[in-house]
C-alpha cells in the first residue's frame, strides 16, 4: 500500500463524519436508547475484518484471534439488532 491509497480513505472518513453527525443529530430524543443499540450492531461491522483473519488461516494464532473476534462481533450483531427491534416494537402511536 502506497500512502496514496490513503487519500480515498481519508475522503471517505471526512464525508462519513459529516453524514454521521447530520444523521445522528436528526434522531429524535425519543429514540436515543434504540439508537445506542443500533449503532452497536452497526459498529460490529468489525466482523468483516475478523472473518478474513479467521478464514485465511495464516497461522494458528491469527486464526484463533480471528475466530474470537468473529464470535465477539456476531454477538454484537445479533443482540444489537434484536434488542433494538424489541425496543422499537414498544413505541406505539396513540390509538394504535
Amino acid at each position, binding site marked *: 500500500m502506497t500512502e496514496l491509497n490513503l487519500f480515498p480513505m481519508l475522503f471517505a472518513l471526512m464525508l*462519513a463524519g459529516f*453524514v454521521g453527525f447530520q444523521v445522528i443529530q*436528526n434522531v429524535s430524543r425519543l429514540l436515543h436508547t434504540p439508537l445506542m443499540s443500533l449503532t452497536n450492531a452497526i459498529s460490529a461491522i468489525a466482523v468483516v475484518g475478523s472473518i478474513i483473519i479467521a478464514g485465511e488461516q495464516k497461522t494458528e494464532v491469527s486464526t484463533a484471534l480471528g475466530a474470537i473476534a*468473529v*464470535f465477539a462481533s456476531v454477538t454484537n450483531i445479533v443482540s444489537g*439488532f434484536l434488542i433494538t427491534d424489541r425496543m422499537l416494537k414498544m413505541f406505539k402511536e396513540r390509538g394504535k
Partner: protein
Amino acid sequence: MVTVVTQVCYLAAATLFIFSLRWLSRPNTARRGVFAGVVGMALAIVGTLLHPEIVGFQWIALAVIAGTVVGIPLSRVPLTAVPQRTAISHAFGGLAAGLVGSAKYSIWLGEGELTAFRTIAIVVEVLLGFITFTGSLMAAGKLQEVIPTRPITYRGQNAVNFALLGTAVLCGVGLVVNPANWPLFGVIVSLSLVFGVLLIIPIGGADMPTVISLLNSYAGLSAVAMGFVLENELLIVAGALDGASGFILSVIMCRAMNRSFSNVLFGAFGQVQAQAAGGEAKPVKSATPQDAADYLGAAQRVVFVPGYGMAVAQAQHRVREIYDELHKRGIEVKFAIHPVAGRMPGHMNVLLAEAEIPYEALVEMDEINPEMPQMDVCVVVGANDVVNPAARTDKSSPIYGMPIIDADKARMVLANKRSMNPGFAGIDNALYSADNTLMVFGDAKSVLGDIAAALRAEREGKAAA
C-alpha cells in the same frame, strides 16, 4: 485481490447503514431502519465470505454459531439492564478490533509487510480497541454493581494515567520506527488493557452512562482504524457513523447535566454523594397513596415526571394503570421527559413505551416547562435531580445551571421515593420540603400500584352507586 461482487456488497451495505440511521430518526420509520441495518450487515458478511483469501470456513462457522447463541439471550435482558448490555457490547467491539489488529500485526510481521502506515493504523486500532475492551468491562461491572460503584481516587491519579498513556504512545512511535520490534507491540497491548481499567476506576457509577457513550465513539474509531488497516471503506463509514453517534450522545448528556467532559472523566463526581448526603433533612409533609388518589381524581390536568427510581422499581406499568384510570375520568395526562432522566439517553421513553403509553403523551422538557403552572398535580416518580430547583436558584449547588423540569411550579406536587436519600448528584432537593409538595414514601411499584387500586375502587364504587 478483492472481487467486484464483494465491493458492490460493501457499497450497498454502507448505503443501507446510512439509511438505517436516517430512518431511525422518527418512530414510524424506525423499524424499517433496523431492517435496512440487518440487510446491510448481511450483505457485508456475504461479500466478505466471497473473499478469495478465505481458505477454510470451519472456524468462522463455529464462531458465528457461538456468537448467535450468546447474542440472543443478551438481547432479552430487562430494559433496566440495557446500559450494562451496551457496555458489554462495546467491550466485545473493542476486543474484536484489538484482536484483528494484533493478528494483522503478527501476520504482516511474519511476511515482512509492515509498512510505516500500516503500523500506525494497527497501533491506533489496538490502542483504542483494548482500552475500549477493559474500560467497557469496568463500566459494565460498575453499572451492574459487581464492582464498587464509588469512584476510587488517589493522589496523582491523573498523572499516573497520562504517564501510562504517554508510554503506550511512545512505544507506538518506536514500533513505527522499527515495526519488527514486536516486544514493543506486546507492551502497547498490555498498557492499553491496564489503562482501560485505570481510566474507569476514578469515575462514579452514575457517570457510567456518559462514559459508555464515550467508549461507544472509541469503539467506532477503532473500527475506522481497522478500516485503514484493511483498506476497507465500509469499515471506515460504519465506524465513523458509530463514532459520531457515541460522541453526540455523550455531548447531549454532558450538556443536560451542565458538566464538561473532563469533569465527567476526572471529576470523580460520585464522591459528592457521600459528603452532601450528610446534610440534615428539612421537615416534609407526607401523604398516603389514598390521599394521592383523591388529589389525582379531583384534578383537571396531571403531569408525571418519571426518573431513575421508576426504572429501578420497574414501576412503568403501574404508571400506565394510573394513566388509564385518569384517562377514563377525562383527565388530561402528560409525561414530562428530562433528557437525562434515568441512567441513559431516552431511558424514560423506552420504559413508558414498554408500558404502551402512546409517545404523543411524552413531552420534552422545553415544551412542558411553560405549561407547568397550569398543571393541577405533578406526580414525581423516582425523579430527583432533574426536578431539583437548586439547579435554577442555588449557585453553590453542583448541578447549578443544569436545565430542569419545573415541577415546583405546578399547583401541587406528589413526590414518590423510598426515603429522603439524595439522587445521583448526591444533593438535597428543596422540592420535597416545599409547601405545595406532598411526599408519598415507598417503592414506586407498590405505591403507584396502591394509588391505581384506590382510583379503580373509587370509580367502580361510583359506577355501582
